[in-house]
């Protein structure tokens, strides 16, 4: 029961965020960014933490979602829901099509192939100037107010935050439901003992493929929201550095727990925001965070405080 209580407290805190965050020196857009990254990393964690596939190129699907949403608004139609839908489908489709190439691999080879595939999209975004805006990124679009008949939901900074919170809630419910289903249990079983699952007659590869596709779709969903948050997207949203950041956020929070990535995202995004405002060498500090997490907190923050979280 404590777990349900915790989730309710967390959700109330998130609903009230636009009121208390500015008060402690933050801004609402930072809250939106945290939730968006939380969707992305929790999605990635379906592969990484629950299925045990070391996906190190997740920024590709995040970026595809972002470019999909941005390009829909810019070239297709001024509709926010359509932009989110197209972005999500673009990233999800890419992950689904590329899944068969990675699903057979394991460990470091899985990681290497996912990183390298991610770079393909990065270079397409950088070089396809006329459409993607090249190195400068895709600008010239903005999120559009949502119309329900005659009623209009204006996407101001605060209102957009609530849209993101709604998306976050939907994504969390979907992921939780999947993890409670036979599919989710099979993923965890594959992580724990892949060979045994194979011998039980389950087609492990298909399940890894499913995990990869679902994770890619959810990450793309987050990417689409991210493009709408900043009304901008750039090749940096596709770069392997972002992929690495996603993974470290997950490990920082605890990759064996459902909400672990959220904790990692809060710490990482706030730290990054703060460091880049006080020092030009923030990259060095981020790098040191990486090294110290690996050496000191391999099980993540939640792993240190909550032993139960390790087993989920």
């Amino acid at each position, binding site marked *: 029961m404590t777990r349900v209580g915790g989730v309710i407290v967390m959700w109330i805190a998130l609903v009230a965020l636009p009121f208390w965050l500015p008060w402690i020196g933050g801004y609402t857009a930072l809250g939106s960014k945290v939730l968006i990254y939380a969707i992305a990393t929790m999605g990635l964690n379906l592969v990484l933490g629950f299925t045990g596939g070391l996906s190190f190129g997740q920024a590709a699907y995040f970026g595809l979602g972002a470019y999909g949403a941005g390009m829909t608004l810019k070239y297709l139609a001024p509709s926010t829901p359509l932009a989110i839908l197209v972005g999500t489908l673009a990233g999800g489709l890419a992950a689904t099509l590329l899944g068969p190439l990675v699903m057979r691999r394991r460990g470091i080879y899985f990681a290497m192939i996912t990183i390298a595939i991610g770079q393909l999209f990065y*270079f397409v975004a950088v070089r396809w100037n006329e459409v993607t805006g090249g190195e400068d990124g895709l600008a010239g679009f903005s999120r559009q107010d949502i119309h329900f008949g005659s009623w209009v939901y204006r996407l101001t900074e605060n209102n957009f935050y609530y849209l993101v919170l709604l998306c976050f809630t939907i994504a969390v419910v979907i992921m939780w439901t999947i993890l409670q289903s036979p599919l989710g249990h099979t993923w965890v079983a594959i992580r724990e003992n892949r060979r045994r699952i194979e011998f039980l007659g389950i087609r492990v590869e298909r399940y890894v493929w499913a995990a990869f596709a679902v994770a890619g779709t959810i990450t793309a969903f987050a990417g689409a929201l991210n493009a709408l948050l900043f009304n901008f997207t750039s090749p940096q949203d596709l770069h392997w550095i972002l992929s690495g950041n996603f*993974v470290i956020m997950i490990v920082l929070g605890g990759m064996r727990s459902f909400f672990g990535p959220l904790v990692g995202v809060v710490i990482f995004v706030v730290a990054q925001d703060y460091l880049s405002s006080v020092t030009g060498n923030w990259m060095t500090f981020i790098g040191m965070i990486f090294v110290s997490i690996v050496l000191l907190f391999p099980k993540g923050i939640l792993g240190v405080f909550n032993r139960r979280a390790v087993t989920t």
Partner: protein
Amino acid sequence: MQLLLFNAFNGLIQGVFYALMALGLALILSLNSVINMAHGGFLVIGAYLAYTLNPYLGFWGALVAGPVLAGGIGLIVERVLIRPIYKRPDPIYSLLLTFGLALIIEDMTRTIWGPQGLPLEVPDIINSPVSEDYFFVTGYRLFVVGITAAAAIGLFLLLRYTLLGIRIRAGTRDLETTSALGVNIYKLRAFNFGFGCLFAGLAGVLAAGVLGLTPPMGNSLLMPSFVAIIIGGVGSLFGAVVGGLIIGLAAGIATTYYPAASEAVIYLMMLIVLVVRPRGLFGEEGLFE
């Protein structure tokens, strides 16, 4: 035709750097079971140290000192940071650790030497074009190819015929048995890591003579080296070299016909290889599958 030759040759030179990087990466990947994301960092260290030492030691001295120092720093990094995490079975930790190192090294390079590009002076004797028609074939570029070929052949001979090389190959096959037979695998892995970094440093110095020095140069060469390994086949050093040369050449040829695709073509080739022959050109079946 002239343009095609020009671009193909440029691509080949680029491919030589990929191959050198990929060789070091593949060495570390097979024996240390580490994807060294900081490999580009060691390349940058080798290149910048050679640049700094160039006025004191001359080009030839720097060409030796840069890679050796990069290898030395690699030894220290292995001992202090990587050795403690060998015992963790999940490869995610070494990946994240070296990823963090890559960020630190790039940022520190920018702080110490500045963000702007720097040139590495190459002696005139080897820097003049070989012929008028083929102006792009400078002596230095042939020199780069020669040094790389010598280094690669040297490595193969070392692995094939020396006791150390035999131990490295044995460790790659079965680390536990090698250890049980009385080989100090900690020393072996440390040496191997340093050796891989030495190759990165060598690639750095040679690349600096052609491309100049910039802090992100290492990280931009890193991804194509991954692709070189995947195309060549994980577990095969020969494959890594061939893979590097192939993608360099392909990128060069693509530059002639469709310049915007020169990078993407590398990754497209990788996808094709993964579909047609998942283990890579010279990879062993079943490895990491």
